[in-house]
Structures are given as C-alpha cells and as structure tokens.
C-alpha cells in the first residue's frame, strides 16, 4: 500500500494563480493559452444561447471570431409529466441545454460554471471539439466553481454536447445534453423558421405518469428500459400552445439531436416528407425526400421541409410505442390557406358492405337504407322486439354455460352443501324479483333451499339487462322447472327499485 502525500499536491495546485480559475480549479490547470497575435486580433463576441425550441439567429459575419460561451450547470426540479416532477441536471436550466451556434474556424472561449447549489461535479464533452475528452477533463468542475478552456472549431456540423462525469448514463439520463451548431464557412441556406428539438429517455422508479417527485432508477437505466422517451424533456413540451408554429409556404428547419443515453431515434414527421436531410449532422451530403431519418444516441441531424398545406404535423419517434406510451410526441402547427389539389381532406363518407355489395353503387345505398329502416322498426315495435320464450331460452342457455354452470353445474343441481341447486329449487320459484336481484347484485350469507342450509357467496354477475332476463328464463324453464319468461322490463324495474 503506498501512502499518498496529499498536502504538497494540493498546494501545488494553489500556486498556479495565473487566472481566476487556477486557484480553485481541478489539478492539471495549465493557465491561459497564449494565442497568436492574429487570433488575439479577432473580434470578440458573446455567444447568444437559446433554450429549446428556439435557435440563435444565423451567423451573418463572413470572418472568424473569438466567441465567448458561458454555460451554467444547474440541478433543478421541473415537470416531466402532468403531476410528475423530476430533478433534472441541466445546462442553462433547460432540457436539452442551451443551443450554441458558432462558425467553422471560430476560437471558442468556453466557461462551464457549476452552480453553488449543485450536489455534484459536472463537466461537458462537446462533440464539436477536437481534443481528448471533447473538453471533459478541462471542464470538470466542483459545485460552486467554474472552469474555462479554449478550442478551435475545426469541423462544421451539428454536434451533441453532454456531461461526461461518472456515472455518465445517469448524468445524461438526467438531461445533461444539448446541441452546438458549427456553421460551415459559407453558412447554411436561409429558411423561414428554425427549431431546436432533442430526444432523450428518462428512467424513473415510478411508472409513466406516476405523480410526485420521481427518482432515477439505476436498474431500468442499466437494462435500457426507459419510463419516458421525450422531446425537449417533458411530456407535452411541444403540444398545444407550446406546439411549434409556422405558416403555409414557409421553409422549416429542425435541428434534431438525440441525447440518449441509450436509444436511437427513428425521427419522423407525420404527413411531411423531409425535402432535405443532413444525415448524422454532417455538412457534406444532403439527402432528399426522406420519410424517417435515424439518429443515433449522441448524434444529430438537420431536417428541412416546406409547408404546403395547413394542419397539425406530429413529430414522433417512429418506434411508436415510445410515441404512444412514453411521450415521444410533438406537434408543428401550420396555419394558412388550404390547397385541396395537394391535399383534399375527406371527400366522401359512405356505408361499406364489404363483399356483399359494390361500395358506393346506388343499389347498395338503397339496400343499406332499407336495412336501417327495418332495424329501426324492429327496435320500435314491442311485438317484434319482445322475443319469444324459445329464443330467450336459447340465448339464456349460452349465458348460463358461460357464467353460471361452474357453480350450479350444467344440470342445475349445484354442489351438495356448497352451492344450492336451481333444478326444482323452491327458493328460486318463491320470488321472481329476488332471483333477478341475486343475479344483479349477488348473494352472500345463509339461505335454505329445499330444506337444506347453505352459507356461501355468489358475486354480482356482469351481464346486460337482456342477458339477465334470458338466463333467468332459461333457468326457470329447465331441469323440470317451469315458469313465465323474464323480460328486460322486469330486470330494469328491479334494478331501479329503492334500496
């Protein structure tokens, strides 16, 4: 076992007082980089950071700059679903974190501040950074501290950034990711609207929608069984009055990223075809006319489309259980005039008879009308509606064999001392209304049937009024029993009686 000499090392860190951070930063602080005169001469600008779904404005300048980025880590409790909260770990207070937009060749002076109220250290790995860890080691920051490093944006593209502090799946799984766009030197083609959407999954100890403050579930995370798969960190973050909004005729661009920590997204907008996709966030190739684009965990893509007709377009992960059961659903509402040549809307709603008739023909329509007329007359006419005893008996038999036979047995004799008989039962015969009541509400406690005492429990039967009338007609006319048929009206009268 070797003894560690902590004190000299700690003091060594303290002797590096070259910058504001050197006296408090992690060991390995190297002091400010000495930039060449040409770089120092570049204009300095403060990066505009936006929270989702907003995107900073396109970069207009045609030269490079020294871009100052100040990003703050905060651990905050926010809504994950209606009635459910979660402690998110955030870059800039939102999930995903602030959108950063720079230009290829820019020098980025990046400061990560970890809010004093944080429980944990955090850092940032920007996939746009060329260098070990993507900045992770250089930005590893204790609560209540700040770390600075500088990088040159060598490659254009849309890049994910995320926390890379162990246990990484938990830091990412709590919302620590975002996008940084490095615009190519020539910029991106202008569009009318730009949006920022990121998918990530959350592993909570409660089920989907379980109320209250939810805890992270380590086992679900390791098994990759998320409770929530979300766009922009909450169920409904892009729904209703928070839906993305654009107008017909506008070109829309979505910067879409996947934070993960584990799942790949099959990103799809229902009812739209992406005119252009920059797959995997790269700037070299543009794919056209894409229905669904696959975006890996820790990856991004740019999609673009023109809105031709108005309506609500639904953003989903086309692994659809995630959309329907885990929250991966957003909306883009397009306002403007209809174009019924491109999309007519519903033109016809007609009765369909399948193989029985040619749909839409005049004869089939007449046939349908006639059938409906007959059905209505049958419902209205008591002579027809009140079925004969024989028909009721047959239907009642089916109900009996489905619901009653298990205890009272197919021959109606019941089980000795446990379930009373129905065949030849004086108890059954004595009170017609009581029989209805028992079927509807069940019967518990002592009864005497044909001189034998029973003390058992029959549950209420979940039958329709018609089934109750039918089954009692069957029972009172089987195994030697004989009686008047029960009607639906009898059943209803008993059902409505005062208690």
């Amino acid at each position, binding site marked *: 076992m070797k003894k*560690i000499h902590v004190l000299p090392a700690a003091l060594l860190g303290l002797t590096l007082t070259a910058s504001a951070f050197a006296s*408090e930063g992690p060991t390995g602080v190297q002091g400010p980089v000495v930039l060449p005169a040409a770089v120092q001469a570049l204009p300095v600008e403060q990066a505009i950071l936006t929270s989702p779904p907003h995107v900073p404005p396109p970069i207009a300048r045609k030269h490079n700059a020294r871009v100052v980025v100040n990003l703050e880590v905060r651990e905050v409790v926010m809504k994950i679903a209606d009635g459910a909260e979660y402690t998110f770990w955030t870059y800039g207070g939102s999930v995903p974190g602030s959108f950063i937009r720079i230009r290829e060749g820019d020098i980025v002076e990046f400061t990560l501040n970890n809010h004093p109220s944080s429980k944990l250290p955090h850092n940032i790995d920007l996939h746009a950074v060329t260098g070990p860890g993507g900045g992770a080691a250089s930005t590893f920051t204790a609560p209540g501290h700040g770390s600075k490093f500088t990088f040159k944006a060598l490659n254009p593209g849309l890049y994910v950034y995320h926390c890379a502090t162990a246990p990484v799946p938990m830091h990412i799984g709590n919302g620590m990711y975002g996008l940084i766009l490095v615009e190519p030197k020539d910029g991106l083609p202008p569009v009318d609207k730009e949006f920022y959407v990121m998918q990530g999954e959350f592993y909570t100890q409660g089920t989907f929608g379980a109320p209250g403050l939810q805890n992270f579930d380590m086992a679900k995370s390791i098994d990759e069984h998320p409770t929530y798969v979300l766009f922009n960190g909450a169920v409904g973050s892009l729904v209703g009055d928070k839906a993305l909004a654009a107008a017909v005729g506008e070109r829309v661009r979505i910067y879409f990223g996947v934070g993960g920590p584990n799942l790949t997204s099959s990103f799809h907008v229902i009812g739209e075809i992406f005119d252009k996709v920059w797959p995997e966030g790269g700037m070299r190739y543009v794919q056209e006319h894409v229905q669904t684009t696959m975006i890996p965990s820790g990856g991004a893509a740019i999609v673009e489309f023109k809105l031709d007709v108005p309506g609500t377009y639904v953003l989903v992960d086309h692994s659809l259980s995630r959309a329907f059961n885990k929250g991966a659903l957003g909306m883009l509402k397009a306002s403007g005039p209809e174009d019924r040549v491109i999309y007519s809307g519903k033109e016809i709603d007609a009765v369909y008879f399948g193989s029985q008739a040619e749909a839409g023909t005049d004869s089939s329509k007449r046939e349908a009308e006639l059938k409906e007329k007959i059905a209505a007359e049958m419902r209205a006419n008591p002579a027809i509606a009140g079925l004969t005893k024989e028909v009721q008996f047959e239907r009642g038999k089916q109900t009996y064999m489905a619901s009653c036979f298990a205890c009272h047995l197919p021959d109606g004799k019941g089980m000795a001392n446990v379930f009373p008989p129905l065949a030849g039962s004086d108890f059954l015969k004595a009170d017609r209304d009581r029989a209805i009541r028992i079927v509807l509400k069940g019967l518990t406690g002592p009864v005497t049937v044909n001189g034998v005492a029973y003390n058992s429990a029959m549950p209420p039967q979940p039958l329709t009024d018609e089934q109750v009338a039918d089954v009692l007609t069957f029972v009172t006319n089987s195994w030697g029993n004989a009686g008047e048929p029960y009607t639906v009206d009898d059943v209803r009268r008993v059902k409505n009686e005062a208690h």
Partner: protein
Amino acid sequence: MNSITRSLRIALALASAVAGRCEAVDASVGMQSIPTGAYVPVQRSTQDPESVPVAAFRLDERPVTNADFLAFVTAVPKWRRSAVSPLFADASYLGHWAGDLEPGARAPADAPVVRVSWFAARAYARWAGKRLPTTAEWELAAAAGYTTPAGKNEPAFNRDLYAWLARPVPDILPSVATARATLHGVRGLHGLVWEWVDDFNTAMVTGESRADTGLERDLFCGAGAAGAKDTSDYAAFMRSALRSSLQANNTTTSLGFRCASSLP
C-alpha cells in the same frame, strides 16, 4: 507508514496543545467501532490492488454539526470565516453562516456543517484529537446497510440512497438525528451530505495529470468504466467523481465531514 502515523500523532498533540483543549468535542459525539474488512474501489488503475484491507477503526456516529464547528472556531480563531487564509478555504467557506461565531438560521445547530474545506476539516479533527477517515475506511463503513454488511443488496437502503441523490440540496439541511443508523450504529454516511476523506485526491496525485495517465485514470464518459470493478454501483461512481473534482481549499453546499480514530 508507522513513521507517518507517529508524526501525525505528534502533530495532533501539538494541535491540541495549541488549541488548549481536547476533551469537550470528544464528549459531544459518540464513536462506533467499524470491524476489519476490505474496500473494493469502484475505480482503480491497473497497478492498484483489487481490494484494500482495512483495519478496524472508530468512526464518529454522525457528521460534525454546526454546533460542533462553532466550538472549534470559537477555540481556534484562525479558522473563523473572516480570518481564514484563502489558501486553505475558498471564498464560500461557511458562506451560509450569519457571522464568524454565529451560525444563524440557515445553519441550525444540529445540522451537519458544510462549506468547509479539507484543510478546515483536517484542522478540526486534529483539534478534536481525531483524524479524517481514509477513503477506504469511509467506503467500508458506508457499504453497510441498515441490517446487513452489504447495503447495496438491501432494497430499502438503496431506495433511500437514490432518493437522496435524486434531490437537490435543500437550502437548510436537516438535523443529523434524521438519518437512520446503519448496521454499525453510524448515521448519515448517506442521505445528509457528502463527506471529506483524508485522501480525497488520491486519483490526482499519483499521476502527472489526468490527460497523461490514460484511460484507467480517466473518469469521463465510457472511459470511466474502463478500470471499474462494479459498473452498476452508480452511487460509488458519484462519490468518486465528487472527490476527484475537489481541491483541498474547496467548499460546497453539500460537503461536510466526520472524524475517525485508529484503535490502539
């Protein structure tokens, strides 16, 4: 090792003599015996042993409170907020206290003291005639659950642990009495505050720098799992990450300490 222990004892004796007292604090907090065991680091380099034997020792049954720390700064003025050297405590040292000798409403007497540096914690321990536990000792004690030596296999223990990790730091910390005692009769190793250990920066001082030591020293991203023993012990990763983010003069809103002592 023996010579170091001896010099530590001498230093302790000196510190106690300088402080002019050494019994009052001992009386204010009970200690529990932690039996001999082995600590299995969650992260280690290829040169490190898989498991570290830990001799039986004594550990404070609860973290040091604001009241305890008030007694310390009352007795040793150089550790008061207004007097402390910035070399030994950063600007937020005891920042939530109302004054030098007045913890105030945001630092209840029975709540664990936080916003203390490693230097301050160590000075307190010397003054109290004790020392800080090592990482191995602290982790060995903290591995015990409520009823068994391996808390990570106790569902109730894990639930409480992750519930605490999932919550932000409250503005006002709860009383140390709120923490449930574990098998060894020790409270609040989890669920109250993080705690300093004597060798918190082990991972940093053995190598030249993080970047030079390669994957097995690197805590970041997937690389963090490269030298890991049990990658499913997320709480241990979090403690390890926290310790390696710290400098000895750092203070945070959720970082306190407790003392230990060796058995004779």
